[in-house]
């Protein structure tokens, strides 16, 4: 057994990060760059009657001023509904309206502030349900004309519905009639932000021969390349996208946004290098955020607490443009029940336009949002029936023989072991039945539970790749298209490669930065699929490398390839292990003592493409979107002051079926990090909009993240049900810590305060309103 697996090795890039040497997109030298700044809409919904750029253009140092009139192309990964700069209509407060390119940042910013825009306000639509009203004016008048990039996005012209996914299974109506208890709940979850610590930034330049170089903080460099190539009719081979370290993504850096603007900026100044920077305030208000959600969830169970039927409607608040939101509606539909057996199911998941900042993927791809709704409804059901909420979940947990909402048969290999996660979290949290415990005075303690599962929604043909080369000391270099944004992909891949090559992980050097001209394509660093997709590519590259080493080894040792083993830095014959050559002596081809050359240099390559996935049937939702599911269970404990309506989060527990633990410390840290984001999200984060639809105070002064000192104790444990199709059996885990935390917290607080807390964030003032303490 090698030491590479189940080893808590430090991050490959650890020393770069503690020495300030890790470079992020806007850290690279830029003395030769012009600077670009944006002017954004102050109106949530308005016709743009005129833009006066004369004052800006006249300022010294200004090289170009661009508006929507300068680019009539539409962008969007699924549905092309968004201009790079608003044309004619601004659809959210914060939408980029104009861009200035100047010799330096102060000049560009000063000029941007000199641009005068004349607006004519249009009525804003600020919630999905408002946008769904029959008389609501469509935010996109030309919805029918937009190009659909994928076949399963079906906008409904004349309305604000950008996409709709349906799941129909069994006969929900009839089943509800048989239920002993039926719960119906409505939810309103506001949009919020990714708040990666690194503000988005991008640079672009166009060489005289047409070569385009984009440097960006993207999670999806290959998508940047593809979208730029298609939109601007550039041969893809002429475009290079470079991504150094990324300072946190959480899904927010997966869409192609600043890159388009940086390209346009460079083009406007004859291809000169341009650096586009935005302040935090624009990063929050102007670039895609986390979706809001409105939902109605109806659950029915028999007297034993067995779920019989579910009816759900989810309205994803995608904001003014779709970006990837139709797929988030699809993801909700595909996993809508949570990890429970529900045979009679009707679910509609819609993606609805509003005049909010547009949304994009956010850690867990909508699973945190719908899970909140389902898990709150389950607690209400447990209350109604008088069951322990944890036991109710255990009773209904998906088991072999059950099916996912879209009809995929559940097996331990595919969907993991939900029941064991629940049993383990029961132990880990010292679960006490979910009843509040009085501490005397106005203080109580209470626990809340939430289960979850998560699958992925990649394109059915998503790819990854890996190259492995040798150094003269026998160590290897690993090159992939995986972006290192903190999720630890590079280190995990190094461990997978070291395990396969039977090397010390220290002998695997990972190329830290992605360059699309150098590294093989990796779909995107999203969906927690790095370990799975790139991991499989790495395994194939290792196999390829080993085969080459064996070929050279067999020829050098004069034996059959089948007899050759590669391990511990050596190539040797299994029959006569004392006859060996050092890996470094074989890696570049072998030279005999007599000087003869044998074999070839070993160069490993591995390609991987997802298999077996399908589109969902538009009428029933039947189909399969994901290579596997990862289930988990979480418990949050709070101490509440019933009189003051305040609380502290005491502990947060998570048990996740990770398939196989590759790096215990890193996995635990990643999951706890997700839990922490969940605590922050659930306790304090929301975009607040005023009545005109402008975000109130989109900055870190007012939009509070959890600081140190208020965090609970985190307890993380694992269940290991291997996924046989995954490298080392490991399931995706990087996003998952967040998913059930908001629901578990709301369940704990609902138990503590004795009332239904069905909204987010759970601020004391909201709790006070919910318990009827405020007029």
């Amino acid at each position, binding site marked *: 057994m090698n030491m590479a697996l189940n080893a808590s090795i430090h991050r490959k890039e650890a020393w770069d990060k503690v020495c*300030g040497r890790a470079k992020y997109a806007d850290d690279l030298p830029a003395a030769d760059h012009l600077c670009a700044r944006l002017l954004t809409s102050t109106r949530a919904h308005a016709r743009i009657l005129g833009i006066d750029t004369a004052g800006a253009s006249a300022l010294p140092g200004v090289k170009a001023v661009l508006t929507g009139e300068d680019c009539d192309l539409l962008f969007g990964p699924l549905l092309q509904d968004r201009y790079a700069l608003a044309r004619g209509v601004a659809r959210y407060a914060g939408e980029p309206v104009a861009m200035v390119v100047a010799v330096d940042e102060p000049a560009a910013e000063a000029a941007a502030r000199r641009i005068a825009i004349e607006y004519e306000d249009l009525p804003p639509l600020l919630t999905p349900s408002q946008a769904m009203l029959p008389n609501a004016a469509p935010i996109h008048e030309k919805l029918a004309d937009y190009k659909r990039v994928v076949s399963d996005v079906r906008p409904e012209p004349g309305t604000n519905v950008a996409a709709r996914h349906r799941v129909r299974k069994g006969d929900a109506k009839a089943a509800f009639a048989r239920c002993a208890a039926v719960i119906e709940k409505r939810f309103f979850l506001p949009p919020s932000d990714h708040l990666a610590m690194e503000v988005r930034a991008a640079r672009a330049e166009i060489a005289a021969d047409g070569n385009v170089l984009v440097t960006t903080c993207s999670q999806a460099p290959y998508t940047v390349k593809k979208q730029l190539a298609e939109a601007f009719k550039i041969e893809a081979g002429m475009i290079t996208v470079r991504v150094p370290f990324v300072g946190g993504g959480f899904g927010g850096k997966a869409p192609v946004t600043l890159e388009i603007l940086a390209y346009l900026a460079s083009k406007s100044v004859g291809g000169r290098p341009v650096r586009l920077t935005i302040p935090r305030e624009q990063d929050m208000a102007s670039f895609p955020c986390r979706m809001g959600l409105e939902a109605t969830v109806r659950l029915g169970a028999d007297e034993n607490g067995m779920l019989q039927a579910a009816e759900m409607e989810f309205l994803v608040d995608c904001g003014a443009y779709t970006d990837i939101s139709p797929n988030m509606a699809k993801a909700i539909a595909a996993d809508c029940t949570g990890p429970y057996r529900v045979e009679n199911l009707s679910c509609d998941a819609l993606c609805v336009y509003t005049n909010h900042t547009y949304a994009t993927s956010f850690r867990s791809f909508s699973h945190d949002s719908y899970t909140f709704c389902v898990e709150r409804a389950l607690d209400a059901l447990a209350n109604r029936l008088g069951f322990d909420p944890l036991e109710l979940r255990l009773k209904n947990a998906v088991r072999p023989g059950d099916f996912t909402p879209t009809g995929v048969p559940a097996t331990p290999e595919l969907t993991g072991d939900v029941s064991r996660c629940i049993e383990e979290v029961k132990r880990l949290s010292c679960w006490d039945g979910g009843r509040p415990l009085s501490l005397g005075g106005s203080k109580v303690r209470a626990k809340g539970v939430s289960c979850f599962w998560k699958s992925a929604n990649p394109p059915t043909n998503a790819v990854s790749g890996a190259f492995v080369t040798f150094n003269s000391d026998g160590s290897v270099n690993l090159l992939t298209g995986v972006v290192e944004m903190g999720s630890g992909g590079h280190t995990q891949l190094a461990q997978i490669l070291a395990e396969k090559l039977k090397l010390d992980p220290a002998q695997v050097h990972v190329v830290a930065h992605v360059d699309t001209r150098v590294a093989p394509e990796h779909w995107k660093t999203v969906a927690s699929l790095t370990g799975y997709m790139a991991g499989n590519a790495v395994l194939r590259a290792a196999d390829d490398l080993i085969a080459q080493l064996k070929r050279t080894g067999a020829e050098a040792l004069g034996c059959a390839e089948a007899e050759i083993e590669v391990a511990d830095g050596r190539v040797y014959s299994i029959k006569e292990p004392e006859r060996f050559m050092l890996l470094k002596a074989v890696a570049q081809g072998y030279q005999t003592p007599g000087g003869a050359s044998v074999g070839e240099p070993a160069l490993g390559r591995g390609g991987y493409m997802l298999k077996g996935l399908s589109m969902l049937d538009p009428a029933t939702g039947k189909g399969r979107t994901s290579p596997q599911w990862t289930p988990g269970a979480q418990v949050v404990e709070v101490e509440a002051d019933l009189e003051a309506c305040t609380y502290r989060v005491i502990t947060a527990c998570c048990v996740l079926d990770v398939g196989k633990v590759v790096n215990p410390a890193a996995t635990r840290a990643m999951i706890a*990090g997700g839990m922490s984001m969940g605590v922050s999200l659930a306790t304090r984060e929301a975009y607040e909009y005023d009545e005109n639809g402008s975000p109130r105070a989109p900055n870190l002064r007012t939009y509070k993240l959890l600081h140190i*000192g208020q965090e609970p104790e985190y307890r993380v444990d694992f269940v290991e049900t291997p996924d046989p199709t995954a490298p080392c059996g490991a399931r995706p885990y990087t996003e998952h810590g967040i998913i059930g935390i908001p629901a578990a917290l709301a369940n704990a607080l609902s138990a503590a305060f004795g009332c239904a807390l069905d909204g987010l964030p759970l601020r004391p003032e909201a709790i006070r309103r919910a318990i009827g303490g405020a007029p």
Partner: protein
Amino acid sequence: MVRYEGKTVLRLRVNGEEREVLARPSDVLMDVLRDQLGLTGAKPGCRNGDCGACTIVVDGWPNKSCLMLAVEAEGHDIVTVEGLGGMSAEQRAFVEADAFQCGYCTSGFLMVCHAMLTQHPQMPEELVIEEWLQSNLCRCTCYAEIREAVLRMYGTGKSS
């Protein structure tokens, strides 16, 4: 009285070296460190003093370099993460405790720790540690690893 108007050559003492930069009086120190001296360890996470990613140490105290004018730095001793050397107790502790993920907030936390070690050579009480670290935000970790790094920095953490 000293008065500057327009771009001026400033003499700054950064990481023990005398450096000359050309700055406007309204330029904040962070931009001058990053753009002119290439010291990009200080990060523009918010430019508003809220996130702490740009923290440096001035005369032994933590300081958000987005909220200090470069002209104010004249005559003061500036240390950035690049000046920690690479094997300092703070840096080793952060590596050993895996106290970061994306790494963007790391320099800021390290500089708070560096100042804390300067002002409190013996480990202060937990409340003090918390107060110092509450000046910075980390979006990736759950903070437990950062707490552990501080303990290790003072030689009291779990053995590695």
